[in-house]
């Protein structure tokens, strides 16, 4: 943890709100009531309806775009030869990256006994799932013949053919599928005690039955809790290597290729750092408005924001180090193709994307050195937004700028996205946000059991 203050994991009864994980006003009952009421009782604010409507419209745009895409072909996008990968792959890597925060928060921070993760892990995990779902769309959409996607899976078939296991795209499939499956199970297991709480507090028949079924008969007995903790820890242990492996594998999509700008050994750790960077940024971007709208300041305190900003900042510095090393090795390689790539990134046709990337991804986040920025939700939201844009740009720079000018000057080209590219990018944002809003509407976004754990511990100490 980059900031020594974050080591503090005990509840300190102090006026300094940045140290508080759960507001001292919260009791066991009030925590449950507050969180469950969002789903069960409270009327949904206009904010929810308006935002959901916008996101849903974007989602419809996505569906329209996909329909046309399947009907006509990937030629509706701006991809060409030499830039055969465009927005679809940029979006894929971006979404996968975003999908890293949840598991990082749930698994790694759990193992590291970081209590501050408790109020945010549910939302972060849900966000992970949705981001991975968005990411998972793109490899399918980008196929020239998407209806043959399953050929990439190792399944028994009459042709007796296997995938080509040397291809990183096959590794991708395994990595992403595994990650999605484990994340889903992890998230669902963590939900079970809360689902039971919801069942118990439900007023309507429908929600009683619904929550009753998915809470799998949880009664909160000691033996339940014992099994629960064991499974949860095991899953956390399983997830931990996945956090590191998924984006490492995704990075091999590029590192295995021979294109200058792709063919580099720094990619796996660089991509993982970038993924956690953008993942935390996205958690902040989602959490800050929700915290405000649903008045969750008592469970998502400034301390949480501060901690997340710290993690984001630390990984951001790693990413910055990656940029420096990429440039250095490009020059140091003595290879004219690598050297040209470095120059072309900075002053080629897409030079502006590189400078913009440095601005939004490295320069602006330097504001996080200041506690005032870290603990102010508005400024933190802005920085996180900047990081999200920056991480998208980073993938653009890596993929498109490397591809458009490779070895032979005769085959150099240019890439310009079409309206369909943008529609599908924003449509995927629409899908993501829609899922988040549905999640907020139908499931408890803060883990009540874990909040109550903190409250209980505090009460024990007080006693």
């Amino acid at each position: 943890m980059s900031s020594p203050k974050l080591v503090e994991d005990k509840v300190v009864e102090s006026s300094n709100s940045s140290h508080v994980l759960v507001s001292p006003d919260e009791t066991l009952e009030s925590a449950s009531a507050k969180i469950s009421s969002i789903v069960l009782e409270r009327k949904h604010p206009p904010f929810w309806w308006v935002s959901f409507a916008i996101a849903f419209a974007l989602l419809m745009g996505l569906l329209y775009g996909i329909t046309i895409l399947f009907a006509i072909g990937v030629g509706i996008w701006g991809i060409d030869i030499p830039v055969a990968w465009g927005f679809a792959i940029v979006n894929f890597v971006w979404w996968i990256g975003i999908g890293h925060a949840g598991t990082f928060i749930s698994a790694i921070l759990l193992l590291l006994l970081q209590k501050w993760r408790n109020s945010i892990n549910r939302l972060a995990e849900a966000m992970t799932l949705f981001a991975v779902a968005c990411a998972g769309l793109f490899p399918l959409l980008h196929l020239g013949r998407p209806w043959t996607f399953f050929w990439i899976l190792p399944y028994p078939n009459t042709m007796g053919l296997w995938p080509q296991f040397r291809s990183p795209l096959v590794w991708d499939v395994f990595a992403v599928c595994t990650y999605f499956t484990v994340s889903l199970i992890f998230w669902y297991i963590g939900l079970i005690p809360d689902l039971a709480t919801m069942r118990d507090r439900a007023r309507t028949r429908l929600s009683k039955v619904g929550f009753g079924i998915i809470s799998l008969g949880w009664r909160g007995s000691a033996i339940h809790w014992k099994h629960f903790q064991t499974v949860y820890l095991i899953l956390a242990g399983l997830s931990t290597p996945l956090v590191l492996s998924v984006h490492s594998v995704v990075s091999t999509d590029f590192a295995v290729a021979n294109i200058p700008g792709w063919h580099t050994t720094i990619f796996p750790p660089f991509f993982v750092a970038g993924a956690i960077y953008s993942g935390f940024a996205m958690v902040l971007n989602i959490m800050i408005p929700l915290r405000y709208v649903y008045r969750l300041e008592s469970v998502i305190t400034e301390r949480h924001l501060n901690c997340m900003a710290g993690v984001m900042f630390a990984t951001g510095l790693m990413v910055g180090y990656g940029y420096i090393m990429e440039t250095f090795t490009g020059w140091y390689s003595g290879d004219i193709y690598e050297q040209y790539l470095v120059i072309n990134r900075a002053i080629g046709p897409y030079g502006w994307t590189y400078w913009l990337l440095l601005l939004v991804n490295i320069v602006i986040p330097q504001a996080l050195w200041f506690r005032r920025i870290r603990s102010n939700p508005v400024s933190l939201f802005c920085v996180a937004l900047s990081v999200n844009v920056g991480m998208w740009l980073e993938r653009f720079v890596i993929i498109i700028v490397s591809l458009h000018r490779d070895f032979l000057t005769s085959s150099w080209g240019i890439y310009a996205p079409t309206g369909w590219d943008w529609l599908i990018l924003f449509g995927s944002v629409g899908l993501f946000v829609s899922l988040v809003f549905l999640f907020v509407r139908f499931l408890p976004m803060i883990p009540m059991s874990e909040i109550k754990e903190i409250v209980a511990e505090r009460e024990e100490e007080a006693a």
Partner: protein
Amino acid sequence: MERHERKQRSNDAGSSSFASGANPVPGVDGVPGDRGVTQWGSLEQLTDSPEFKRWSGREFPDGASELADPLERRQFLKLMGASLALMGVTGCYRPPEEKIVPYLEQPEFLISGRPLYFATAMPFNGSATGLLVTSNEGRPTKIEGNSGHSLSLGATSVFEQAALLTLYDPDRSKTITHNGQIETWEQLIAAWLTEQDQQLAQQGRTLRFLIDSTTSPTAAWQISELQKRFPSAKWYHWEPISHESIVEAHRSLFGRPAYPEFQFADADVIVSFDNDFLFDSPYRLAYSRAFARRRSYQTGDFSNPNRLYLAEPSPTITGSMADERLPIDGSVMGTLVQMLAASLGVSQAKAEVHEREAVAWVEACTRQLKQTRGRSLVTAGYRQPAEVHRWVHAINAALGNIGKTVNYREVPNAAPLPPFKGLAELAQDLGSGQVETLIIIGGNPVFDAPADLEFEKKLTRARFTLHLSLFQDETSTACQWHVPENHFLESWSDAVGSDGSTSIVQPLIAPLYSGYSRHQLFALFLGQVSAQDYDLVRDYWRAHAQWNDFEKQWRQVLSDGFLPVNSAAVIPAEDSASPPQPITSGQPTPEREGSLPVRQSLPQSAFSRTTVAASGPRDPSNTIELSFHPDPTIWDGRFANNGWAQELPKPFTRITWDNPALISPALAKELQVANGDIVEIRTNAGKVEIPVWIFPGQAKRTISLYLGGGRYRCGNLGNNVGVNVYPLRTTQQPWVVSETQVRKLGKFHQIVSTQFHHSMQGREPVQTRTLDEFVRQVVPPDQLTKKPEPDQTLYNFEERLTAEHQWGMVINLNTCIGCNACVLACQSENNIPVVGQDQVWRGRIMHWIRIDRYFEGEPDAPKFYQQPVPCMHCETAPCELVCPVEATNHSAEGLNQMIYNRCIGTRFCSNNCPYKVRRFNFLQFADTKTLSFQLGWNPEVTVRARGVMEKCSYCVQRIRAVEFDADKANRKINDGEIVPACAQVCPAEAITFGDLKQQGSQVSQLKTSRLNYGLLEELNTRPRTTYLAKVVTEKPETKLQAKE
């Protein structure tokens, strides 16, 4: 289809088809070329101008993201579909019959699934190329050159290749029309009979025939019969791109129409004044081969290559081969020739030019020519006036070249009047109402006649006008009657090439639409209403060939593809090589008595200006000259509706689907224009608005225009593609206009080129050696280091290459002239789709082999490099590694192969291909809706659907065909038996394919050449396609002298 019975399978021909065989951008260019010369690409890059920055930021400007675009392509498909539907509406469309039943009687030689080969010939621009056409179940699918034909030698140019697509063009005319209404052949006959009676009554006094430059003996015979029937009728020939100045110059010298024929094999030094003899000469294929053989560097002791000195206004493929190329205005050629004549002692006349480079160039030519008397060759192009040709003749005669490197042949069936003069006379007669009946056979004079003739307007004054043509084109629309013409692959005819080779034009398929041949039409005019072209052609040869056994000989001729006669007599050397008379004035040779008074009748012709220019130094600094050239892909506009031709990137500019005005970098700076800026060009004749393209190597103050753009009635594909520049052309100044005003308009047009950025950036994809390095067997050190050490791999490749054959290819950069024929041959052989201008603009051109070009040196007079790039078939192919489904993989014989069925379209292979030779079907590019196009597809090659990757396969279908045959016959495959389409069509023999494992095979020998290198070899891809480095002249003499 019954005609197939008449065709003979050519056994000989059948087997021969396979048997024949400056300143870099600051900071960008990290490593400047070690060898002192920096290669660069687009001028904007070189100059680092704001335009470049502006452009490079947004090569595809704002409009790039229209949502509607993919739908536009659908609309295109719909249009194609609609035109197909219309074929049905007319009711005159005869689709080829398809019956899925076995043959009751197997047609002779026909085995289903095996192609047959038929010899025929393609008449083109006053000559003819002998062809061998592949026929699959009665459908011609591929055109190859006839290796026995002297004007083909087994090769073809782009035009012969493109002709196949025209055959299947759904926009072709399908029915006779009268004033736009569909009519029948019977009604045409009735109309003609009325007309005929009137003309017979007055002996055809008001009857005129205008015919394209046909060389058919049968047609000539029919014409002479018609002249007997209508004694007062007049005949004119029209061809917008004609060699009239050459023919007329020699007519004035020898008293008969003559055309020079060169022996490049014997010429050590070649001096060319604006003659693009590798592209637009009727001898282009034969010349390409002979010229290339003198600089192939394929044998180790090759030390006496030919040297080419060439002056021209706009870079051409021939110019790119020049050892010393002088970019200079076309109007100065006369002066230059006289300077050369003076310095060689042929004349005493003084002539001067301003340009120091030109003086140095002439001095260099003089020095070389003096050393090589009798082994040199001076030539001028048809764009130059007759006077220049007479000077050239005088120089050749003085050098003793006549009879050695230069011969003259009489032009067979020469036009009674040269085209421009003839058309002018016809237009005058039309205008004055002396023409009542006008029959136009082929050609398109309404579109391409000189503007000052106002041909279209005058045409309406005739009472009866008829046009026979393939398309309902501009002229057809202006005429009352239009008769659809049969394609040359659909009808019987005959043709004579410029060298006198005589061929029978044999149809490969029954007419797709209800067309008629010109012989049928002539027969109608002769009163033979139901004559068939087959009978007419046979009758002619039966009467004129004097064969003992006509049927036997006839079959033999059809099998060979040409007759054992030569219809163009060589003018004896003693007649033509008369010692030059001392010349003291500007008139090099006195006009002979009895020769046609050509020049006197042409008022103020272009050459009289040359004489004026010769009298005093011309000041080039204040005029802008206009120069017309045939389009490198659509010629005079006749291929405008041909997708293959339109999409073929033009040499050096790599522009497709457009014909911008080509201007020099200096002039662009002066006019403050960038690529795509629209200018108005105004001459005395008229004005056009046309976008510009900055062309390195263009003469500083010459604007070059390609003819043929801007057709407006050629079909759905070609209408309004490019700009029509014929309105600037006049009978007085058909090729060069010296008084021109150019004005920038402030409008912009996106020109689509396939190669914008093309500096080599110190990467040296084209490696060069100096002659000295070649002779001393030295490889430049910086190029040596690029080869990876053999032990830089963990794999033992020799162990893995266990199959009997290991295929490989060598491309000789010394002989490649960049003619583009391989690109179209590949397109035709491999069913490669046409994608249209918009998709090319989006970077999705589909050609499997592309011609890369690079510039080097000064932008005003750069060196040109061209490099054909097919798939390299790397032994360690990066593409194979990354395909998740193994859709691209390696065969045991070393082919990097694509399995289209397995491809799911991730495109990772293309990303990982360092050569970027892979092509992706981003959309449904293959036109599966237009039935007629399907007829032309090669049944041996899968038609790719959308979403799959494709690329050069080394023509694997041809490899397999030979392998099967050899296997069945239990014999070995001979070297040279397998020829990919690109190698087969190459007139310069630049591409060699074969078995690397076979001892002594040509390809394995070339691989041991010290010029052999692999593209991007340093990546350790171990390419199977390699190149022979280009041997360059190390010290361009003129440059040294100009600097002194």
